[in-house]
């Protein structure tokens, strides 16, 4: 994987030299390729988000031929590194547009750098609140929030994850006590926010969230949280946890006798690898589901349905499908669509205008920045995609993510009902 990536970057920069020599002729000579930067966490604790990157980029190159040149950068799961590589893309590689995916720790630094440098950036795979509010100068004062000129984002929001988790828990009887695991990072602070996060919204739906407080990522010990949840007799566990920490927490919870009836965790159990690390104790853990092979959408680039794309991924890599396949692919669909509608790819204002005017049926559903389902302050820069709830089931040694609740997006079929742990 890393070898391939390196080779890709090498060929990309070699191609860049050719393009540069061509630019001695009139600007945008015939055959000059549009340069697109792509930033994602290909190594580090968030690496599972980027497993499908190579597959998607290969498919994009096959579908668009010589039109684009994609320059790939690894954020190493580190926000500072993400900002650095965004600078490199803008200054050294002179890209026309940046694509960025996977968690606020990657999307926010890249979007902030691109916005300040005046380069259009399309971002996804982070709930929109940490993305939009997290980039504001003063996140606690809604009056000071300003829309962005060049930064655009599409994904679901906290209101969706709240509705999905509550709908899943409503499927069977519990005492309504919920243990909340919220780390001190972009997602954790947004999800655990006592005013705009999960706790107030869940109490409206009859669930009480026990929130012991923010902890540091990559903690060695979760005794305090486990004791707080046991003391509150929590029958449900929720939170937004990075994958390594959830393994540490879940092992310790089992060791110390904390056994909730339901555990709906954001971010940590999105991937089959995380479940493989957990082993059998991961059966029936639930999480938010943004994309599956059963989603009734197809790619505007390749014409593949979601099921066909997942099958192609498994065939190409020998790995089970993962949710980011759809979203990373949709980023490149958007890039191709936007660049197809501008005359000069190097005019940032024209590109930003074209992004804002997007109306595209993609592999993750319809994307349009029309403000549907969003508060007015976010309407310019954010578009929403559907979210449902699913449970991991271990069938004959293979992990399967089954959609168990679609009350928030009825067009997506369910594959079963919620089961207690």
């Amino acid at each position: 994987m890393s070898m391939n990536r390196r080779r890709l970057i090498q060929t990309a920069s070699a191609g860049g030299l050719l393009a540069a020599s061509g630019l001695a002729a009139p600007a945008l000579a015939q055959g000059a390729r549009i340069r697109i930067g792509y930033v994602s966490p290909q190594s580090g604790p968030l690496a599972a988000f980027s497993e499908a990157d190579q597959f998607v980029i290969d498919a994009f190159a096959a579908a668009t031929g010589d039109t684009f040149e994609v320059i790939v950068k690894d954020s190493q799961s580190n926000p500072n590194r993400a900002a650095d590589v965004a600078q490199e893309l803008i200054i050294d590689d002179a890209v026309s547009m940046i694509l960025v995916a996977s968690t606020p720790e990657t999307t926010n630094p890249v979007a902030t750098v691109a916005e300040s440098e005046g380069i259009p950036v399309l971002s996804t795979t982070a709930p929109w609140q940490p993305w939009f509010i997290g980039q504001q100068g003063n996140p606690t004062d809604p009056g000071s929030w300003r829309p962005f000129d060049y930064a655009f984002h599409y994904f679901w929001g906290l209101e969706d994850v709240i509705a999905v988790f509550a709908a899943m828990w409503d499927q069977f009887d519990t005492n309504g006590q919920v243990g909340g695991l919220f780390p001190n990072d972009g997602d954790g602070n947004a999800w655990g926010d006592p005013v705009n996060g999960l706790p107030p919204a869940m109490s409206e739906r009859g669930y009480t969230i026990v929130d012991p407080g923010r902890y540091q990522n990559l903690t060695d010990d979760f005794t305090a949280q486990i004791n707080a949840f046991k003391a509150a007799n929590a029958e449900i566990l929720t939170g937004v946890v990075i994958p390594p920490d959830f393994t540490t927490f879940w092992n310790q919870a089992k060791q110390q006798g904390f056994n909730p009836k339901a555990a709906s965790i954001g971010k940590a159990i999105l991937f089959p690898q995380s479940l493989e690390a957990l082993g059998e104790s991961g059966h029936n853990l639930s999480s938010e589901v943004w994309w599956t092979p059963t989603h009734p959408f197809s790619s505007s680039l390749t014409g593949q349905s979601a099921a066909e794309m997942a099958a192609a991924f498994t065939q190409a890599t020998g790995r089970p499908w993962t949710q980011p396949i759809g979203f990373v692919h949709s980023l490149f669909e958007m890039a191709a669509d936007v660049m197809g509608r501008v005359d000069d790819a190097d005019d940032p204002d024209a590109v930003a205008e074209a992004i804002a005017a997007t109306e595209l049926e993609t592999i993750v559903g319809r994307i349009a920045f029309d403000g549907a389902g969003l508060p007015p302050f976010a309407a310019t820069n954010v578009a929403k995609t559907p979210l449902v709830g699913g449970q991991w089931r271990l069938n004959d040694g293979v992990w399967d993510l089954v959609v168990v609740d679609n009350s928030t997006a009825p067009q997506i079929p369910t594959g079963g009902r919620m089961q207690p742990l």
Partner: protein
Amino acid sequence: MIWVDTILQGVLLGGLYALFAAGLSLVFGIMRLVNLAHGDLIVLAAYLILGVTTLLGLHPFLAVFLAVPLMFGIGYALQLGVLNRVLGDDILPPLLVTFGLSIVLQNVLLETASADSRRLPAGETAVEALNLGPVTVGLLPFLTFASAIAVIAALQYLFYRTAMGRAFRAVSDDPVTASLMGIRPASVFALATGIAMVVVTIAALYLGMRATFDPAIGPSRLIYAFEAVIIGGLGSLWGTLAGGVVIGVAQTVGAAINPEWQILAGHVAFLVVLLIRPRGLFPRAVD
């Protein structure tokens, strides 16, 4: 009951920190060498165990038996080939060499193993629990603490009951007189670092099964190890265990009050001990 549990879990966590610190304490006690690469050597050992586990399909508890002689060899060679050359009256050169070694190790691991977080696959052992009446503790933290006691007892025996230990103490007190008695300080030092690396490997085993590791986490482990050594008193092995427990308990109690205080509470406990007893809890008589 929650407080009993919190403190017990803290004591068990302290066992892990004591394991981090025991090797450091040993090396410092014998040759007054502050090994700033100690944390990175723990990470290196964890990758070695992981490598053996994946290559041979062994459980980490078995893989460690292959990793231990390897790490002993690495420690022996490191001391003989590099560190012995810089030991002397000036404490600065060895400090700088180990500092450089720390950076080299981190980058070599980053280059060969990537920045991915890894974990030693412990299977069912990772979630097994022991029911101790009112509280349940994990089998793994319990084994960690038991190993810490065993390691320190073994080191204590080695130090005060064997000929090798006598040689260690002799070169520690006065290398010149010791060499007049037929002891070669260079090879004694190499042996000591080799033994310290054995302890490091055991620490790596439990670290890798409890949490995840990546090439960059070494320095943060070094801080806990340092604090445990200093709280316990320089050169005192049982003191090192006490130091680890103080940090572990401070962390879990801090987290029980508010999880934001978990890491901070350990460091505050260290500063408080330094204020009250600047030489640590159990300082060796003369230094």
